[in-house]
């Protein structure tokens, strides 16, 4: 067996793959966060909770309405997106004029409420959700057995990330959003309904989180803590990548997933903390992040 640094090659490939799978979720979630921060200047600490709500909605759609996985992929983000728009109208709209940290505290509070409600109704261990039968096979890759579903998640994530990046950077809608970020008053003067744009953007960012939740539901058991487990790492990804940069968020998300995967092989306890070490270093050396535009 070929060994690299004392670890067998199949294990390294396997961990690399697992790292890319985790990185998919980091990328999807940090992308939504970056979009929301870019336009609304809101640090959405409730993003992880929206991810969790998306997963629970997926389970609920199946359990109560018998809507399967494929239906949930479409319905759950829409439902959670609308919920996000309502939140924006009711709460978040009121604090735009305040110090940015109040936004952090507000969304943190919202996250706690959502997590607490979920824990009350579903218990700390949550519920389980099986992947659709068509994707439940196991593929023998030679160096490891890969559940087919996990492989599909990576492909789906790449498509979603690329799609979103394309819309923001290359289409007219994206240009409008970027313009509204830089100068909302001017854009409004041109007749664009900026508040509506803002609400839709928040809803969109949140819907992205929910979509990630749908993908995650069969993978990690659907439990109330699944969002808060990820949110700190996702924030680290956004900060490292640069808070306004969507491309940066995507690349950093996948990159950190891979770094985490390798750390798991060589120093397993360190995988939980390597993200924060990297974040601390980047913040001290390049405060705007690796790809950031804001100082």
């Amino acid at each position, binding site marked *: 067996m070929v060994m690299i640094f004392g670890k*067998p090659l*199949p*294990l390294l490939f*396997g*961990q690399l793959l*697992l790292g890319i799978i985790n990185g998919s979720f980091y990328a999807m979630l940090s992308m939504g966060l970056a979009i929301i921060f870019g336009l609304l200047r809101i640090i959405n600490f409730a993003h992880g909770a929206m991810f969790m709500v998306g997963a629970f909605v997926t389970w609920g759609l199946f359990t109560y309405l018998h809507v399967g996985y494929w239906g949930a992929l479409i319905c759950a983000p829409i439902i959670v997106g609308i919920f996000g728009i309502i939140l924006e109208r009711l709460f978040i709209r009121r604090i735009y004029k305040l110090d940015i940290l109040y936004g952090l505290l507000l969304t943190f509070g919202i996250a706690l409420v959502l997590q607490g409600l979920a*824990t009350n109704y579903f*218990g*700390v*261990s949550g519920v389980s959700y099986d992947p659709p039968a068509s994707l439940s096979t*196991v593929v*023998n890759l030679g160096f*490891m*057995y*890969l*559940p087919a579903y*996990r492989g599909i998640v990576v492909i789906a994530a790449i498509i979603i990330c690329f799609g979103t990046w394309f819309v923001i950077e290359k289409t007219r809608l994206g240009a409008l959003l970027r313009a509204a970020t830089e100068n909302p008053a001017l854009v409004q003067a041109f007749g664009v309904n900026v508040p509506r744009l803002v609400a839709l953007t928040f809803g969109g960012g949140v819907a992205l989180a929910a979509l990630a939740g749908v993908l995650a539901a069969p*993978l*990690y*058991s659907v*439990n109330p*803590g*699944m969002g808060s*487990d990820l949110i700190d790492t996702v924030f680290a990804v956004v900060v490292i990548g640069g808070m306004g940069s969507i491309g940066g968020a995507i690349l950093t998300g996948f990159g950190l997933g891979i770094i985490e*995967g390798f750390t*798991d*092989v060589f120093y*397993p*306890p360190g*995988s*939980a903390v390597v993200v924060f070490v990297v974040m601390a270093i980047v913040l001290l050396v390049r405060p705007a992040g690796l790809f950031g535009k804001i100082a």
Partner: protein
Amino acid sequence: MTRRATLGTAIAATAAALPGFRARAATGKSLTIGVCSDFSGVYSDIGGKTSVACVHQAIEDFGAAAKGYNITVIQGDHQNKPDVGAGLARQWFDNGVDMLIDVPNSAVGLAIANVAAAKNKTYINSNSATSLLTGKRCNASTIHWTYDTYMLSHSTGGAMVASGGKTWFFITANYAFGQLLRDQTSAVIKAAGGKVVGDVDYPFPQTTDFSSFLLQAQSSGAQVLGLANAGKDTVNSIKQAHQFGITQSGMKIAGLLIYLNDVHGMGLDIAQGLVLTESFYWNMNDHTRAFTKRVLPKTPNNYPSMAQAGCYSGTLHFLKAVDILGVPAASNGAAVVAQMKKMPTSDDAFGQCTIREDGRFMCPSYLFRVKKPGESSIPWDYYDLLHTTSAEQTFAPLATEGCPLVKA
């Protein structure tokens, strides 16, 4: 009066008016039993509400009402945190609770043992695994019921090694229970000429994704995957092991601590063939079936497994002891426990057993194999009995435990 003073008085008044504390009935024979368990987390199925139901059943079977007893049962969720559990125990013992029972999660179990010893109150741990409770951490007011890590490591561990599993890779819950179980099972493996080729410790209780550890286990080439964890962690590990083709590649799974409720959670498709050790099975004989039939209405969706049956057995024995000593003596933990050790136990769940000097409840243990999907005819009928181990063989010899209570 400023608002702040008003607030302070209001809180003081509310606190004094709270029910249950400092409110012992002046007349009648009153006792309070506290069930400290996990009601919402990874151990909620093997403890939780079913444990409370079993305690109520014991009070009923004891005939408390007819004998003039007024017994209150309170419950508290330790959330798998030692500080929360210890804080609850301290608060309960300071405010009139006579006996604390259950406590899944060995770290919490040990923390409460400290408090029970300091306050000299009766503590029956029927749900933690750590054999330290009758070893270095034993004390005069604590009894360890049902099972311990020694039983698991020798019975399940021994059986796996004997059937050809010589090389092991462990996935261990990184706290008191997992570490001890892994260490004791490793000793059994080495004594039988086997080898531990690897071990990975994962953070407990927040880990739900075991894929990375399973990958490492697979690449180690070990014959046996040893799971030094319990409850939902075990269920998730085994489910994911199937997803990653571990069993397909020929590796055997040794679930060192598996309960009936876990098998129910996994389903026979996944759980079939698993070998495990429990000291109680509801469908074993007429007595156990009768007990189960009585308690089921109180816990309709969850059959009792060994730890919950231990709550029943322990509570019953406690009440018998207090009956002899008299209620005023119930608040003296060491006295009650001494009495409990003098009397042999007798109940429908475990039969006739004894309690040893070090607080160890001595009962036989049973090696079971999980049935195949076709073999099970009635609900929750999951086990085939492979082997019975006598009480003396099940638990560590008194001399090796290192309990300070035992004169050398």
